[in-house]
């Protein structure tokens, strides 16, 4: 991998968007690549529109912010409304299926999958929606390996929640494969 991959993850505060970014970045450095994770946020700890960014490259990464995302994840309508307008024709958009994507969005591809519903109903905990998303992104982007993501995930999640999180991750893989 020589080219830089830029991923923008968006949702609302409290959804674990930043943790999702951290797991992807840690998976990347676990495989010997460079990665930068950053975020922008407002004053609210919960709600609002939350944004996390991940840049992964085999080369040195200079500018730490995503300029033109190769991938954009949106988990809420508010976040989608805010960030979908900024994507270009090269960007693959991944949205939760509850989100209404305006026809004006000019993306390379729009992948609509039931991330939050899968977390809540199939995995059984809506709190792991972010991890389902990480699984889907891993599968769709191929920018990090499944093994690296699993290692990164297990290093980050609280003790006792490993199985739940692994189930969520695998549900994410499946969502991406069966779309």
């Amino acid at each position, binding site marked *: 991998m020589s080219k830089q991959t830029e991923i923008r993850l968006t949702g609302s505060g409290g959804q674990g968007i930043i943790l999702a970014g951290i797991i992807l*970045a*840690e998976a990347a*450095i676990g495989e010997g690549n460079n990665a*930068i994770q*950053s975020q922008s946020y407002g004053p609210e700890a919960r709600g609002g529109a939350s944004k996390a960014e991940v840049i992964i490259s085999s080369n040195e990464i*200079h*500018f*730490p*912010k995503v300029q033109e995302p190769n991938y954009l994840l949106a988990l809420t309508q508010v976040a989608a409304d805010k960030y979908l307008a900024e994507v270009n024709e090269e960007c693959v958009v991944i949205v939760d299926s509850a989100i209404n994507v305006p026809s004006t969005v000019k993306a390379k591809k729009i992948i609509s999958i039931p991330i939050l519903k899968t977390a809540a109903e199939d995995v059984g905990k809506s709190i792991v929606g972010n991890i389902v998303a990480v699984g889907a992104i891993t599968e769709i982007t191929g920018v990090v390996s499944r093994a690296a993501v699993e290692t990164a995930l297990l290093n980050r999640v609280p003790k006792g929640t490993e199985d739940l999180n692994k189930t969520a991750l695998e549900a994410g893989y499946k969502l991406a494969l069966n779309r």
Partner: protein
Amino acid sequence: MSKNIKLMQGNEACVEGALYAGMRFYAGYPITPSTEIAEKSAELLPTVGGKFIQMEDEIAGIAAAIGGALTGKKSMTATSGPGFSLKQENIGYAMIAEIPLVIVNVQRGGPSTGLPTAPAQGEIMQAKWGTHGDHPVIALSPSTVRETFDLTVRAFNLAEKYRTPVMLLTDEIVGHMREKIEIPEPGELEIYNRLEPVEGETYIPYGVREGDLVPRMAAFGSGHRYHVTGLFHDETGFPSNSTENAGFMLDRMMKKVEDNLDDLIEYEEYMLDDAEVCIFSYGSSARAAKTAIDQLREEGIKAGLFRAITIWPFAEKRVKALAEQFDNIVVAELNLGQYVYEVERVVKGAAKVSHVGKANGDVLTPAEIAAKVKEVL
């Protein structure tokens, strides 16, 4: 993955660097976007027998940190914009009383409460001139997470070596982003410890021994009972109104910096050898500048970067030489024009100095820097 390779925030790396350097005392007050430095210090300091205290305000934060330093502990405080303003009086105290101390300012959008969660590089001049009166200043600015670690170690080393507060000017971008960092092994980086009084010799608290750079510092409680004051004092440490003495003491303090520029000044040059235009930047903005340079070179425009790592003292000699080499110097910084004035002062018209910057909470982008370069060429 080596266990020393981690994904880490700049603010966390600052604390890791501080502990590597031997920090054993931290006092501060929570403020965005520097709070992680306090949180991490609170978590880790007691595990190494050190002390952390959250004080009642920013002024108390630096005051307690100075108190800690006087007992012989390597001491740090961290803050952001408004807190940096509040700390100014005691920064001057630490300068005149010659207290080794590290002051971190994770810069955010100002003035006043401004934009607490947004980046800025707005305290470049405040770091130099914020406290009243003439005084020596050492300030460093990292642009990566690893460099935050390294420069925190260096800030402690310089503080100890020169017996003066050293400022680390980071910003919201470098402070909050997570990046790959390889933590150095113990012993890999040099650690400097302050020189203590020579046993059996009469201790002159503010007298410089032959061959020493600064007065040796006795810890309170070590048996040397002496006086520390923010008033001008003579070699004994006691206040003196003598103009002759004040002139002598201030001159000695200023010379700590002025006579050691080679030891203090660090910078990086990126693709400058064959460049036709010089971008001058520092901190997080220098990262945007590097990306801009890569993009400009793809378009056939040979741009290069001078990145100041030591902000104060200013790399005057090198910048003068750059002005001879280049027709154009483009200063890229996240403010409406601060460091650019220092560049202009030194360049004295030998090159055209332009400025690209903003102060609206957004980052300075590679596209904006590249556009400025094209405009001036």
